């Protein structure tokens, strides 16, 4: 078999040092995606740094009312956390709509954020893929791409980010906490993943050696009505054809807080800034929602076989927005 080193550091600092000492290493947590990629030969790290036992497995409430989710908190545990269910329902719903119960029991918060695309050309070493082998081409663009991106794709890559969790986190203004050789930094989840551009091999803005240590759920979106909805080919255990996370607060019929993010449409969770901008301060009416969502999706550039994603995303967003908006007071 392909040999690799296996390290189990005792602290976050040790983990990052181990990475620096072993170029090309990979951090291993739940392994639900990385181990598959090892078997496929897509990932061939010289060293695995197992962070599964680092003290990153808890959800803490901070003094400012935010929640800090450790990087190794399991997806199932995060979805079931009463504080998450109560304050950030879109996140709990997104997590529960992903994968299968067995996978959710193993998959971690950090790993979920860093999972790779499920594009079949990426997974097949015998086919071209610019993400796997830069410059080799894209098999999907003229091939089978019904599941692929309609927003923000490039000539080089049309892959989608498969995460449900990240879509909810993006809409909730969550931030990723990273620790690396230069210390700790934080990035908005909505800005954490890249668009493919000329470098589809880079999924995120993470720097070499940086470790995701946690995710911060802000107080500002705690308790704001939110929901997640996902469309898929079967009732469970399928990636999103399209999905939407919506965070919406309406006061006196006017939208005064809104976050909308799409999944399954792009190389990253797609924060719908055009929609949000149009809605903020606008009346929370079906017509306003329709106009605002259209503003975002007008940027879609569907491929030969995935134009359905545009009406699907629109329908999902309108459904959830209308559901979250309080019924207008009757005279």
């Amino acid at each position: 078999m392909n040999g690799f080193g296996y390290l189990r550091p005792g602290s976050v600092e040790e983990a990052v040092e181990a990475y620096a000492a072993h170029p090309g290493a990979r951090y291993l947590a739940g392994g639900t995606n990385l181990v598959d990629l090892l078997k496929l030969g897509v990932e061939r790290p010289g060293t695995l740094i197992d962070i599964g036992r680092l003290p990153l497995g808890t959800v803490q409430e901070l003094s400012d009312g935010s929640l800090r989710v450790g990087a190794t908190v399991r997806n199932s545990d995060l979805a079931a956390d009463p504080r998450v269910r109560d304050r950030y329902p879109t996140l709990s719903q997104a997590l529960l709509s992903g994968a299968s119960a067995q996978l959710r029991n193993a998959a971690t918060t950090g790993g979920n954020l860093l999972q790779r695309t499920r594009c079949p050309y990426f997974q097949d070493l015998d086919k071209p893929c610019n993400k796997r082998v830069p410059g080799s081409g894209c098999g999907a663009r003229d091939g089978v791409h019904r599941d692929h991106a309609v927003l923000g794709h490039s000539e080089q890559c049309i892959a989608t980010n498969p995460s449900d969790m990240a879509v909810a986190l993006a809409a909730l203004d969550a931030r990723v906490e990273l620790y690396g050789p230069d210390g700790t930094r934080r990035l908005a989840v909505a800005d954490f993943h890249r668009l493919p551009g000329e470098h589809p091999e880079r999924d995120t803005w993470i720097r070499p050696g940086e470790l995701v240590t946690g995710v911060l759920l802000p107080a500002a979106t705690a308790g704001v009505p939110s929901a997640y909805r996902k469309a898929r080919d079967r009732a469970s255990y399928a990636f999103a054809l399209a999905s939407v996370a919506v965070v919406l607060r309406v006061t006196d019929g006017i939208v005064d807080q809104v976050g909308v993010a799409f999944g399954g449409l792009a190389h990253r969770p797609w924060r719908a800034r055009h929609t949000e901008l149009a809605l903020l301060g606008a009346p929370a009416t079906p017509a306003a929602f329709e106009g605002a969502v259209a503003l975002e999706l007008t940027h879609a550039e569907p491929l030969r076989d995935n134009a359905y994603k545009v009406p699907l995303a629109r329908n999902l967003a309108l459904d959830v927005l209308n559901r979250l908006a309080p019924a207008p007071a009757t005279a």
Partner: protein
Amino acid sequence: MTGTTGAALGAPAERREGRQKVTGAARYAAEYAPPGRVHAWPVPAAVARGRVTGVDTSAALALPGVLAVLTPSDAAGLAAPEDGTLAVLRTPDVPHRGWCVALAVAETPETARAAARAVRVDYAAKPHDAGPAEGHPDAYEPEDVVGQPGRVEYGDPEAAYAAAEVRLDVTYRVPPLHNHPMEPHATTAHWDGDRLTVYTSTQGGTTVRSVLAGMFRLPEERVTVVAEHVGGGFGSKGTPRPDVVLAALAARHTGRPVTLAYPRRYLPTVAGHRAPTVQRLRLGAHPDGRLTALLHEVTTQTSRVNEFVEHAAVVSRVMYATPSLLSTHRVVPLDVPTPSWMRAPGEAPGMYALESAVDELADALGTDPVELRVLNEPRTEPAGGKPFSSRHVVECLREGARRFGWAGRDPRPGIRREGPLLLGTGVAAATYPVQVAPSTATAEARPDGTFVVRINAADIGTGARTVLAQIAADALGVPLDRVRTEVGHSDLPPAPLAGGSSGTASWGWAVHEACARLAAHPEEGPTVRADTTGKADADSPYARHAFGAHFAEVAVDTVTGEIRVRRLLGVYAAGRILNARTARSQFTGAMIMGLGMALTEHSTLDPAFGDFPEADLAAYHVPVQADVPDIEADWIDEHDSHLNPMGSKGIGEIGIVGTAAAIGNAVHHATGIRFRELPLTPDRILAAPPYQG
């Protein structure tokens, strides 16, 4: 000549190996570990057509634990197999992507995989043609499909159709589908001198033995084939697959026992699949609904390795009374993986198209779809003119309608709303031919008063051991617990495969005969051998088919285009049901497979690469628990004395036949839109004009 009247047959006897299976004690092919056993991993061709010009094995052989890498021509010394899919490593030619071009053998599966990946193969690629078949200039009409003419025509159907007062001309499409049994195709092979033993996952061990004996130039008695438990096949293990040849070859090459368990990702190109079909249906009718013309034209594809024709038009020769019929196939050989049997090959896609078209005709005429079928019920088999040995499709439709609550159904489509959901119900008939083949079996009376029945049958999860014991117990006139069944070993009396819904009928006939003779003439014992050659394969003056009816209720989400089945009912007329428990399991299992065909399952032939991107169970969407609703399967009592001593018809496949049409018809009833291409995934639903917004 129904000759069994005891208490065992028909009872819901428990599956005999159930405990072994749920406790993990049942051993499958890859779990046999003879001393020194090593593992093989195939290298799939990375081009869709061409020739291997060089194989560099040095890097692979340098890995610790690697024993060998077999390359094209390592099997050149074997006799040429009749089945071209088994002609692996004989020549450097690559007929399709995924074809095995080398085989790594190593101490562990992980090392074998790494070695396979380290093999460098150079190709001279040639331009390939992966279709589509529709409109292809190389299409031809095959002479023969499953022992019937590729084309059947009578009564000037073109003229009759042109003259019909009511005409329907529609085209239905079914994509490539994959069997994906839980247990992959796997073999453990070992040689003891010039004796070969294989533990393999197969629906027919007797054929495996004769194929191996032929290819390795051995007398059959030096080949032992063990297939004690088989984790599903759905047709894809009906004939030997490359795993058994490659494992035996690698074991001989290395002198070590070798296990080759095909990786899931490689199954779509080597294990066979249901070939895609494009089916044009033209129905001509009187205004009262009686058919005047039925034209069913199927276009499909095969590989350049074997001619396999998905015989979807054959059902139109059986189902409806029509004074004129055209039932024909056109097939195109392409540079693609070889299609093969998948549960109800021909009937499943054929009845999807026919039963959808019949529903369309009912809709056009304003006739109830159950009544339209009843109106067109034939008195004899339409294409052959033979009388039916039994045919109770009307009874199935009536009984199903009663149980489903069909009466009073508002036929108007697109009017039942439940919030954003549109609701609808649909019906389709089902048919599957009775097939039976000669078999041998022995029955032995033991001094302790028990009996042992021996037959090289395959239990592919159907409960063959159990039902054969039931047949034996009644024929012997003894309680069920006095009978033991031995199956799945080539030392046992030869028997045909578990396929074509023929296993229980074929094996049961021989078992019944052996047991009945032993009971009547104990002096012939202690062991009596039966051979049904000349009886089981005798021509019947009757058209023999099982029939059924499927009813479905669906909810279509107008927001997402997602469809969920709320209820599914199947009612069957399949002769005598021999085990109520295992029969129900086969019916409902096939209905779930039909649900998958309707809503979730599809493979996509990628024309640029010539294979299927859906290569794992995350991408190939077999229905999951949450997709499966309240399912009910039942049957009517059917007595048919023209079948076999048990009076049974096959039940393994009819449950998938018509299920997809019933669901599709319900989707039309819900939405008012005819979707004519499977599966009915959200992209297809949302592409319809009303949902474009």
